[in-house]
């Protein structure tokens, strides 16, 4: 398990998210090899580790990018709200299986952006993750 896998599995488990973005169009960082055939799609980025709030824990920032065809941002906005509902306030008790403790706190949303690589419109939403350093 790593943070990216945990985030994807949590989003995969949200019916509100997968209603708009089927699980095969929720990608980990760097997993988008070509522009997907389905819009909207999600790409999950997990930042580098910082010292966490207690020994053995790390803090990372994850950014969830939601892309859609150029035009209206309303579907992106709706997906972002569903992502926030799925991830905000997620807490697992420490010491429960491989996951250990996880705390996920919403930080903020980006403005409306355009990605000239994927030729999409996009916004992202960021979360602070605290917990065991799976990615170390």
């Amino acid at each position, binding site marked *: 398990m790593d943070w990216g896998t945990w985030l994807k599995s949590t989003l995969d488990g949200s019916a509100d998210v997968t209603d708009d973005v089927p699980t095969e169009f929720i990608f980990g*960082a*760097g997993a*988008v090899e070509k522009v997907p055939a389905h819009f909207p799609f999600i*790409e999950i*980025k997990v*930042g*580098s580790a*910082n*010292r966490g709030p207690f020994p053995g824990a790390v*803090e990372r*920032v994850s*950014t969830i*990018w939601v*892309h859609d065809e150029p035009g209206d941002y309303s579907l992106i906005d709706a997906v972002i709200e569903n992502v926030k509902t799925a991830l905000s306030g997620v807490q697992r008790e420490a010491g429960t299986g491989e996951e250990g403790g996880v705390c996920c706190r919403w930080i903020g949303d980006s403005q409306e*952006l*355009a*990605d*000239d*690589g*994927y030729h999409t419109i*996009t916004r*992202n939403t960021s979360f602070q993750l605290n917990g065991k350093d799976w990615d170390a």
Partner: protein
Amino acid sequence: MASPPRIVFTEDSLRPKVRGLSDKINTGVRAIMEFQAPQCQNYMRENAPWDDQTGNARNGLFAKAYSSGGGGRGRDSAGRFTSGSTASHGIVLYGSVPYQIWLEVRFSGRYAIIVPTVERKAPDVMRMVNKLLARL
């Protein structure tokens, strides 16, 4: 019968120290920002994840410390102590090439360096500020 014990303050050492506290905090926080700004700039230039064509983008990454406000401390017309305006301190990270925004956004931020630097360095800055406040 003996009179009850009592304490007589003949010197007010508390209020002058409290009045000087905001100046100490502002001076300390300003010094932290000025110390951390070049650290942030170096981090960006060393870790920007793109291959240089001209070097303009890498050499155009800057971090500048700023401080504003905090003045006006004194007494109001009724002779009451006033703390003055709220001071603001920060570090601005930016890229000076016109296409910096595309480097930050393209392919879900694959070539981003400014936001990842904020995520990486902000905890260092806050740790130093917390140490400063703990000492005062």
